[in-house]
């Protein structure tokens, strides 16, 4: 069975997955378009790994359908596996093999011919900056290098789609940066769906993010749109000098301002925090009022909200719960 829309690389429809009686994934549907980097976020036990495993063909959905590059994940299982490069969590590898030997083994499992495989191994070793480690035993490699070997394995058979389960988990900040750069370099020629706990990483890497909680997708959009969506305007901070009661009363009267809070600073200035509706209207109205009333203003800014805030708010609202893993 083929999907008709050729711009879609991954299509999930009403995916359900139960472990015993426990629903790990509850009827999620989403599309990932070709060339996109999409992040799957969520607290532990949200169902991210189960979802990725279903997409990669390691688990079968209890109900629902998966299409990869237009091919049904059930009817065309082998075809789907050839189209997907899957990196499981913690990049499991055979420690007793050398890097080149491991890649050759994986290439043969993926049905690659000897000559093509040799060329491709050289290419992925360069892409993942593993040339000087090609003869190293995998068990002697650092976690960062092991992750690169896992990524090299994903790229070996030139799949159009990469599914990466927490590719930077357990790495130090330098290794995270290196792996992130690597993933960004793949984005030109691959569609990437990755799960991560590091929200700043999702903001930096992903064109779109989906936030999962308790087996459902509770929000999906671009990171910046999600931040705006959650906020419903902008959080404004102002530092002013003048009579506190009069200032608060006047600001509360402004049409596009709400939720005004005031605190007195050590140098007798007042800090006002309020929510301004729209894109800057609240700030404009406050500025006009301050000029009219001749208040001293030394700071007026809209606070930048990050995906982390949205994530915390959304998952707190819907509650989070640990579910058993496969």
């Amino acid at each position, binding site marked *: 069975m083929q999907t008709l829309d050729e711009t879609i690389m991954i299509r999930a429809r009403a995916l359900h997955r139960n472990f015993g009686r426990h629903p790990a994934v509850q009827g999620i549907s989403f599309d990932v378009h070709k060339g996109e980097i999409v992040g799957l976020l969520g607290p532990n036990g949200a169902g991210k790994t189960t979802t990725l495993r279903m997409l990669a063909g390691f688990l079968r959905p209890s109900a629902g359908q998966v299409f990869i590059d237009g091919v049904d994940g059930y009817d065309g299982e082998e075809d789907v596996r050839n189209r997907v490069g899957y990196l*499981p969590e*913690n990049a499991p590898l055979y420690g007793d093999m050398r890097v080149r030997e491991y890649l050759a083994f994986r290439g*043969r*499992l*993926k049905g690659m011919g000897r000559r093509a495989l040799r060329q491709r191994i050289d290419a992925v070793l360069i892409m993942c900056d593993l040339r000087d480690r090609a003869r190293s035993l995998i068990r002697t490699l650092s976690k960062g290098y092991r992750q690169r070997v896992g990524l090299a*394995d994903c790229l070996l058979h030139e799949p159009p789609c990469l599914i990466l389960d927490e590719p930077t988990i357990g790495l130090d900040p330098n290794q995270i940066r290196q792996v992130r750069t690597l993933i960004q370099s793949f984005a030109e020629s691959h569609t990437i769906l990755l799960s991560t706990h590091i929200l700043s990483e999702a903001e930096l890497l992903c064109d779109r993010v989906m936030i999962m909680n308790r087996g459902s997708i509770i929000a999906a959009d671009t990171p910046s749109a999600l931040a705006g969506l959650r906020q419903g305007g902008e959080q404004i901070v102002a530092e002013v000098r003048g009579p506190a009661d009069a200032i608060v009363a006047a600001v509360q009267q402004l049409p596009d301002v709400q939720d005004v809070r005031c605190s007195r600073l050590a140098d007798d200035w007042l800090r006002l925090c309020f929510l301004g509706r729209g894109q800057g209207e609240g700030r404009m109205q406050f500025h006009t009022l301050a000029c009219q009333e001749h208040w001293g203003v030394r700071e007026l800014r809209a606070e930048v909200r990050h995906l982390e805030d949205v994530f915390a708010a959304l998952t707190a609202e819907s509650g989070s719960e640990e579910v058993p893993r496969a």
Partner: protein
Amino acid sequence: MRKFMALFRKELGAVFLSPLGYVTVAVYMSATGWTFLQAVQAQVGSRMQLEALHAISVLIWMPVLITVICMRLFAEEKRVGTIETLLTTSVPDVTVVLAKYCGAMAFVLVGLGGALASLPLLVMQAPGIEVVDGAALLGASIMLVLVAMCCTSIGVLVSLLTRNQIVAAICCFWAICVPLMIKPLMQAFPYVRQEVLDRLSVEQHILLYTGGILQAPPAVLYLTITVLMLFSAVRILESRRWI
């Protein structure tokens, strides 16, 4: 076939590129040789075919040899997590099971071959024995290979059921011991007829084959169990997608 060969070679490499394989084979050969010499001394004055005695010595230690190789087959892959990368490549489950089974069998055959080939050397250590009957040795070898095929398939199946190698080893050892000790176990039930016990007894089959009576039923029995176990292993491997 390329995928099968890749997995098969990997399995061979895991055993023969580490000291584990060589140490196990050496210990196995020593144990069978020692058991054989002890049995020869115990049988002085009685009539017992030498080749059958040797084959039974080889058989006694077979569960240990098979357990050592089978305990890690799938349990190790599950523990490390490589089962996930293995099963998300386009390798059919049946190929995975067969490649692992054949890899384990190759190792078991090396151990068995070494133990069987050592008979002439052991005979030199036993006073009063000069001739080894090649045909009887061949008959015993055929039966031992059939039994090994059956026991290795049981080991593959057991290894699939757990991710802990120690649990796999214990279960594997006892699961293999049961068919090998079927006669003494069944003798506990007085209503089981002796004829039935003889038909199921591995020892009896070895005596038959060593005596040149190459009956089909024992061979069919072991091959059937092997196919059944491997079929179950494939089904269990497939079922992990659903459970």
